[in-house]
């Protein structure tokens, strides 16, 4: 049991416990903040896997962007009078069975398969590698990602903004 192993188990524990809190918390704000710890835990695992650039991107995009959007969503959709934002769950037993089946299948596949693992290689300078692949080999995908972002930008602003147009029309 080296320090390396210890760090892995620590991050695995953080991920699983905080993911469970996301699923099980009664208060939606607790879920949102526990999602923060999940994302940080995943970033830690990425660092252990020598993917330092992806770890930083995980923190920037998920914690800095998506989580902020989710918290905005929570703030924008609670009822004004309701201070405690409670949510309930239903169909607990069948869904545990279904996810047990799917998770069991995944674990069985992962453990039974004889993965051809080379000696775990340390990719030094992952940023350079990613940059080279991104603009040469995956060029079309890269431009398509730009188009997806464009569609998301225009679409989401137009959907979210409808309120203002309606009130303007009513005023006229």
């Amino acid at each position, binding site marked *: 049991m080296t*320090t*390396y192993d210890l*760090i892995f188990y620590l991050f695995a524990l953080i991920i699983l416990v905080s993911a469970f809190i996301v699923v099980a918390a009664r208060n939606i704000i607790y879920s949102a903040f526990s999602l923060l710890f999940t994302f940080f835990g995943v970033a830690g695992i990425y*660092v*252990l896997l*020598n993917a330092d*650039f992806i770890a930083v*991107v995980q923190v*920037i*995009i998920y914690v*800095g*962007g*998506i989580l*902020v*959007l989710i918290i*905005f*969503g929570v*703030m*924008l*959709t*609670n009822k*004004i*009078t309701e*201070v405690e934002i409670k949510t309930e769950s239903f169909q607990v037993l069948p869904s545990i069975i279904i996810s047990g089946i799917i998770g069991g299948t995944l674990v069985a596949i992962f453990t039974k398969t004889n993965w051809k693992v080379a000696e775990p290689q*340390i990719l030094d300078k992952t*940023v*350079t590698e*990613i*940059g*080279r692949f*991104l*603009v*040469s080999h995956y*060029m079309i995908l*890269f*431009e398509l*990602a*730009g*188009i997806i*972002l*464009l569609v*998301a*930008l*225009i679409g*989401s*602003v*137009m959907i*979210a*903004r409808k*309120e*203002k147009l309606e009130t303007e029309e009513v005023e006229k």
Partner: protein
Amino acid sequence: MIEQYIPLILAILIALLFSLFLLKASSWFGPQRPNPEKLSTYESGMEPVRTARERFSVKFYIVAIMFIIFDIEVVFLYPWAVNLKNLIDLMGFFIIAEMFIFIIILLAGYLYLLKKGALKWD
């Protein structure tokens, strides 16, 4: 490998402990003699008329969307920018044109929204 991250871990720990300390310090060290007047929302100010936990305007959400989309654009720019020199040696100036296409695609969306008045704050 993991040793490189020790300063980062230390910085996170210090930030966490220091902010927790500051959060608690005033209640540990300061004298506490509360009275109803002191505990009101605005001491010797106006009475609060309704709850502060109101739904805020959707305009802030639109700014957040803009932020996240251009955040990703910057993240995509980064690995291209750090080894631009090698890439130009490898593939010529096509690389720069390619990135400009990407930027122009997103800029088109921004200009469209600007023209539609989505960012107007009245």
